[in-house]
């Protein structure tokens, strides 16, 4: 499971560092990052699958056939299940539920994280401390068992309720990172200046602080989507009712319960796993792209700076300020 440990430390550039001049140039720098491009490509691919997958599926994913448990072939690209169901169609159909839950949960969690994190970071006093304590509590309580007992107590569950449950329980990490960032931002000179000129608190938060948190918010959104996708697949794999029928986790659930392993039916559980890993890798790469965009030190320098040989070990040798990049 992806663990966003590195996110705790502030990711903003140090105060003195010059901020890149134009928007266009900034975009070019983000898109010039190979990791970000591969990540965007993978993410886009799975988004397209989620939209069009169920339409282009060659068979009805639930329809039983005569060819039981056959290995991949021309008519069944990913083989069939013990009931003769087409696994390729199941994968295509399941992609929609996976992406939908991931993105909805990500949006819910990010909105909560921004509200709670920025408020507790910018304001001070008992309320802010309380919000910070609340996010710490949610951080420490093991997420998966919590999601499990909540979904099991709900009277009926579908993809949407599960997305909401995941979203409402996984905002804490983002809130913590955003709080740390806001705390470091609020002491910057330009914020002090805005306060001195009598700007209202909400204007300062909305127009001075939030724009500077964009990268962190994006990173926390992507992190939550990774977490939500893995959680949902896990829930389906454990057999929690309500998850959409052909979710990748559900495919794995059937593979496990029908002893696909013992029967050597590798085509039953390999494709879902690869798909999950590719989606996760894509999102993680996108996140690294953002990280490196915000914190230039993390870039793998050697390939970029031509002519300067990176010494083994420390004290990175970067071109002097003003030298062309």
């Amino acid at each position, binding site marked *: 499971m992806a663990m966003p440990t590195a996110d705790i430390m502030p990711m903003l550039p140090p105060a003195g560092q010059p901020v890149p001049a134009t928007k266009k140039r900034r975009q070019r720098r983000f898109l010039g990052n190979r990791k970000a491009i591969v990540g965007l490509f993978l993410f886009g691919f799975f988004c397209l699958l989620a939209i069009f997958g169920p339409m282009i599926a060659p068979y009805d994913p639930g329809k039983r056939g005569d060819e039981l448990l056959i290995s991949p072939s021309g008519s069944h690209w990913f083989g069939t299940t013990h009931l003769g169901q087409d696994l390729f169609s199941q994968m295509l159909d399941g992609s929609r539920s996976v992406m939908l839950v991931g993105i909805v949960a990500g949006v819910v969690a990010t909105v909560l994280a921004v509200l709670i994190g920025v408020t507790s970071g910018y304001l001070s006093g008992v309320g802010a401390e309380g919000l910070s304590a609340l996010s710490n509590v949610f951080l420490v309580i*093991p997420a998966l068992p919590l999601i499990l007992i909540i979904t099991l107590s709900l009277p009926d569950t579908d993809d949407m309720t599960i997305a909401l449950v995941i979203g409402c329980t996984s905002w804490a990490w983002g809130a913590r990172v955003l709080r740390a960032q806001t705390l470091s931002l609020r002491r910057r000179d330009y914020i002090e200046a805005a306060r001195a000129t009598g700007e209202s608190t909400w204007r300062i938060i909305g127009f001075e602080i939030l724009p500077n948190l964009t990268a962190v918010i994006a990173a926390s959104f992507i992190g939550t989507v990774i977490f939500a996708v893995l959680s949902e697949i896990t829930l389906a794999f454990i057999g929690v009712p309500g998850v959409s029928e052909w979710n990748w986790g559900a495919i794995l659930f059937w593979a496990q319960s029908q002893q696909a392993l013992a029967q050597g039916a590798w085509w039953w559980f390999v494709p879902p796993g690869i798909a999950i890993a590719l989606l996760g890798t894509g999102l993680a790469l996108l996140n690294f792209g953002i990280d490196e965009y915000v914190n230039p030190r993390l870039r793998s320098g050697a390939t970029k700076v031509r002519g300067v040989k990176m010494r083994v070990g420390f004290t990175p040798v970067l071109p002097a300020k003003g030298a062309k990049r």
Partner: protein
Amino acid sequence: MGYLLRRVAFYLFTAWAAITINFFLPRLIPGDPVQSLIARAQGQIDTSAIKSLYILFGLDNEQSIVEQYFAYIGQLFRGDLGLSFTFFPTPVSEVLSDSLPWTLGLVGITTVVSFLLGTFLGVLAGWWRGSWVDFVMPVTTFLSSIPYFWLGLIAITLFAGGGGLFPSSGGFDPGVVPSWDMDFVWSAVYHSLLPAITILISSMSGWVLSMRNMMLTVSSEDYITVAHAKGLSERRVMVSYAARNALLPNVSGFALSLGLIVGGTLLVEIVFSYPGVGFQLFQAVGAKDYPLVQGIFLVITLSVLVANLFADLIYLVLDPRTRKEG
């Protein structure tokens, strides 16, 4: 001391929050929680279990919600978590005490080992950045995106089952009697090897990545330049100056993400039918055994809190600033 006391207070508060969530969740369901659970279980619950549910939820007699709440906390302090449906009429606490040692052994040890190993590799990866080591990064990214349980499935296919090197399920050989003799211990260790390696491979990469990034951040500090300028050996700078400081955020990151890791590792038990809490959770979900799921949630939460406290103690040893404060 002040630091530690504050942490203990925070963990007590969190434990209380978890207990309260546990208490109120079934009561938030509109209507009769027991009836709705029965409806979901579709006739798998027998009548005596229904009665135990009413007792567990405190619905058997006319009590106010406050009285129920205190009765529930009193029950918990006596170690009474209700009766399990799956293993009716065994109390949940008894079911858990059978499985908890297995999980603590497997998940506890592998989590710590993976952190130590991952951090060590991360130090090296951060030190030698810009060399071939950078190519290890995409691999670790891919590995850390794989769900633990799926890697477990692959491991079983490759290394276990028909004539494989390792057993594919269970915690010990069916022929051995659980006791503290060599046969049993060896059998238990042998059975836990494959699940342990699975957890190690997929959880380690996260630590490698975060430690590497931390090393890169630390690398530009002035004291590193000074250490180089003083002519200290590369190794000394790497270990005592860079790694020593990069370690602190990584340790607090470890404490924070324990809750996330434990959720993932429990699933490996399911794949390997390992007789721990995770496998029990799987069975409980399958049987809609709500009291058992609740009990497991509480036990896991409390274990994670205790583990967090240990991580705090270690942090206290590593970072002199926290000691000075109090």
